[in-house]
């Protein structure tokens, strides 16, 4: 792997850009691998990377139906945070943030993690009490959290609407929260994994599993059958579809979540802002686009299409927060398919089919979890044991009722 840096750019400039190597190889599939990862998104590629980097397992294939990073990894609003309520969630997501903090160096790929702070606003007394409850939980969980009154919020975000419909009573800031370049995360992991020997097989669709004696022994693909010792599935909104190929039904539902960008403008917003009253969140990318998100279309969908009602609501929500943005224009609307489970917490576990592991249930927030999700799935695949950070995020909780309901933790009562 050629090292990146100013020197390599200098060499590129002098050589007519002929010095660059492919970021990943395009090998022909082998007849078998120790581990097959299904899904070349952030989680799948990170799993492959950590299998190699942490466990020395390099006889690995990542099988991707389309192009790597093309699912939710490349469709989300790129927010990274660990402002979680429950100790299990906080430990897991903060580990992820810590990995993100070192990821550019670890991968030799600038993922542009920009810790510009993540703000959650409170618009009424109850909302402010809930932010306090969250702030205290975060601090007890060892996560950075600042609770601010209205003046504090307005000092940090001076552009906020001075005459809002929903008053701003305060805000919770996680200073280490922020955003990163989503594509770069997928590409950086892919480059590192490929360099370690992992095969990345794009345009390869898994069509079935070979299961013998309750244990997975291979996958059928559009490029032939590939044998394997273990399988990790990290396909987000398509988890149920892949699960069904192994005869499994999962506690997952697939919903479209949409996002929007405006045209690029000069810097006008320096943090990530989330307003519960309007369900809107936004930040400004380094390119200058406002990146905006909203809620799920609450009917099942595998169509990666946005819908008009959310576009209208998002516009209204953004303008309520920042009425000066009303004249900016939507440039693009799109959607990703989210794998939603009842308690909005992930599943990183081995399924009833021995050797067949799932990494899913990320709902609307999988991007921030990519490093930890990959790390923990790789650990489980390599050692046969759930990683300590992931042991509560298994299938069993749906039977016992020990859900880790972060929506409830955030004070959403019923």
């Amino acid at each position, binding site marked *: 792997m050629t090292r990146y840096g100013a020197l390599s750019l200098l060499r590129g400039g002098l050589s007519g850009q002929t010095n660059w190597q492919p970021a990943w190889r395009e090998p022909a599939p082998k007849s078998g691998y120790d581990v097959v990862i299904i899904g070349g998104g952030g989680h799948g590629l990170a799993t492959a990377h950590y299998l190699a980097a942490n466990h020395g397992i390099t006889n690995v294939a990542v099988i991707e139906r389309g192009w790597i990073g093309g699912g939710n990894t490349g469709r989300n609003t790129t927010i990274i945070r660990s402002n979680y309520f429950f100790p299990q969630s906080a430990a897991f997501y903060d580990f992820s943030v810590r990995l993100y903090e070192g990821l550019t160096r670890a991968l030799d790929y600038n993922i542009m993690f920009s810790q510009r702070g993540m703000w959650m606003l409170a618009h009424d007394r109850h909302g402010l009490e809930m932010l306090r409850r969250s702030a205290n939980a975060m601090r007890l969980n060892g996560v950075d959290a600042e609770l601010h009154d209205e003046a504090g919020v307005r000092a940090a975000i001076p552009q906020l609407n001075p005459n809002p419909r929903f008053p701003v009573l305060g805000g919770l800031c996680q200073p280490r929260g922020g955003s990163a370049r989503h594509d770069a995360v997928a590409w950086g992991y892919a480059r590192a994994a490929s360099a370690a020997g992992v095969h990345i097989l794009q345009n390869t669709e898994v069509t079935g599993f070979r299961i013998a004696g309750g244990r997975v022994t291979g996958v059928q693909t559009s490029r032939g059958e590939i044998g394997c010792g273990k399988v990790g599935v990290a396909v987000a909104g*398509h988890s*149920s*579809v892949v699960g069904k190929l192994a005869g499994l*039904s*999962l*506690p*997952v*539902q*697939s919903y479209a979540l949409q996002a929007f960008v405006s045209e690029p403008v000069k810097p006008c917003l320096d943090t990530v802002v989330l307003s519960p009253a309007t369900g809107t969140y936004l930040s400004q990318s380094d390119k200058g686009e406002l990146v905006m998100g909203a809620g799920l279309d*609450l*009917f*099942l*969908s*595998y*169509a990666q299409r946005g*819908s*008009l*009602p959310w576009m209208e609501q998002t516009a209204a929500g953004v303008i309520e927060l920042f009425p000066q943005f009303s004249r900016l224009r939507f440039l693009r609307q799109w959607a990703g398919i989210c794998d939603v*489970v*009842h308690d909005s917490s992930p599943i990183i576990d081995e399924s009833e089919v021995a050797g067949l592991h799932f990494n899913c249930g990320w709902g609307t927030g999988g991007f921030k979890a990519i490093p930890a999700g990959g790390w923990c799935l790789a650990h489980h695949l390599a050692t046969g044991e759930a990683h300590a950070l992931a042991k509560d995020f298994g299938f069993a909780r*749906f*039977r*016992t*009722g020990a859900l880790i309901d972060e929506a409830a933790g955030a004070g959403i009562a019923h």
Partner: protein
Amino acid sequence: MLNIDCPYCGPRAESEYRCGGESLIQRPALDCSDAEWADYLYTRNNPKGVHIERWHHVHGCGMWFNAARSTVTHQIFATWGMTDPVPELPE
């Protein structure tokens, strides 16, 4: 914005409705096992294709009804009353 044909009111915009998720799920008895109960609460068919789901015309007549809808194209093949038999549907 879907256009949904309420069996009682005719076609109306999606904003008048609320989707209640997968329909025709059997509710187990109180003495079922934890696994059966978990299946009922959480396991969903979640097909990439035709889905039988129920909708509530909440800002309309107030009636619940069933719909068969493609989760890929969002095309709605049929709507029918909760206690009516399932009509013939595409695969």
